């Protein structure tokens, strides 16, 4: 689950909810899915609560592209 994007985590979480709601998986798998869902929900929450905006410059821009700014 490392390096997952928010979108991937959310998509997987939605999948699991659907599977669980069908209730057709055996006990052990249901447990595993539930654990995974809990972890995914926590990850999503972290993405939203703890993320800090980072700003990077687009590297390799031609020199001189940033002169003569607007007012």
């Amino acid at each position, binding site marked *: 689950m490392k390096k997952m*994007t*928010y*979108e991937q985590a*959310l998509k997987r*979480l*939605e999948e*699991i*909810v659907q599977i*669980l*709601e069908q*209730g057709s998986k055996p*006990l*052990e798998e*249901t*447990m595993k899915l*539930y*654990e995974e*869902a*809990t972890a995914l*929900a926590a990850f*999503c*929450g972290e*993405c*939203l609560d703890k*993320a*800090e*905006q*980072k*700003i*990077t*410059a*687009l590297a*390799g*821009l*031609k020199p001189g*592209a*940033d*002169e*003569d*700014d*607007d*007012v």
Partner: protein
Amino acid sequence: MAPLQVLTVSQLTFYIKSLLEADANLGAVIVSGEISNYKNHYSGHRYFTLKDENATLKCVMFRTSAQKLRFEPDNGMKVLVRGRISVYPADGSYQLYAEDIQPEGLGALHLAFEQMKAKLEKEGLFSPAVKKTIPKYPGNVGLITAEGSAAYRDVVSVLARRFPYAQVIFAPVQVQGAAAAASIAAALQRFDELGCADVIIVCRGGGSLEDLWAFNEEIVARAVYACRTPVISGVGHETDFTICDFVADIRAPTPSAAAELAVPSAADEKIRNAMLAVRCSTAVWNFIAAQREKVSALAQSPGLAGPASLIDTYRQRIDLNMLDIDRAVRMRLKGERAGLDILAGKLQTMSPLRVLLRGYSIVQNESGGIITDASQTQQGGKIQVLLAKGGLRCTVDEIDGEG
């Protein structure tokens, strides 16, 4: 009086030319007329005739002047032409050497805008069919605007407030002036080459048509069109439309609005996630209940009465598993209580219970259908009355005629 002198054609022609060129009035003229016989020569020079009801005037505009034209002149167009009068000896004709052409009525920029819009529209650059979908949860947002500008600050702060998860990759460009269009186009290409952004915002604060001109230039339009990464354009104010807006996958009225369109709101996402988590827990609760029922049904079946110890072992194992899940679900639900309270609060504002608390009741028939009309029941019929607290089972004594 001197005897008549024999002149060559060239001598005479150059004499006339020198006369015309010496005339201060003809050295700088502005002539109004209608264009005809317009030719855009491959050399870049433009040849045309200006005319009115009674006269025509041959005109030429050399490439260096023609390159500065914002719009493309055409036959029938009413224009003002600035230039000087001189003679073209090879043709033996005088003509207007044009330095600038302005359309009458609309300004040159407006006309250029309309011409570019019509041209690109015809080529299909604005077609809804070629618009790309903006990703819902971009991890990386490309930002093309001027460094230190209000547009930059607006976009960055809206992104930080709404969805700080999205990282900003910033390409500072000129948004105004002769080199602006090329610098915007280059940034778009660079983003696309690197593939480092999930969506790109191209924006600039408000200004005059002249100020916003870079966003109407063909090179920008082509770059936006060629960009495989979805592009959101937010140039100027609500009322400003640019060619870039038309080609972009989404047009936002302002830079801030562009940022709002680029990312979801974290607050909405939290509610959505809490609901998903609740659905998970509920599903597992239901699963446990169903399994319990199955197990006890099996245990009670007479066929299995014999090897009771074996079944007990299995039951115990299942029960242990159930306990684990039970605990996990309980923990989870506890954690979600805060989120749920918010949701519950929202639900409650819509709840009929609030109406009941004010003294109203709901009357239902035996199958639970709501009765709103006396004719839906009959004398001696059974009804239920739902109160804010508890309910009543009643029999209808009499029906009022007012049905």
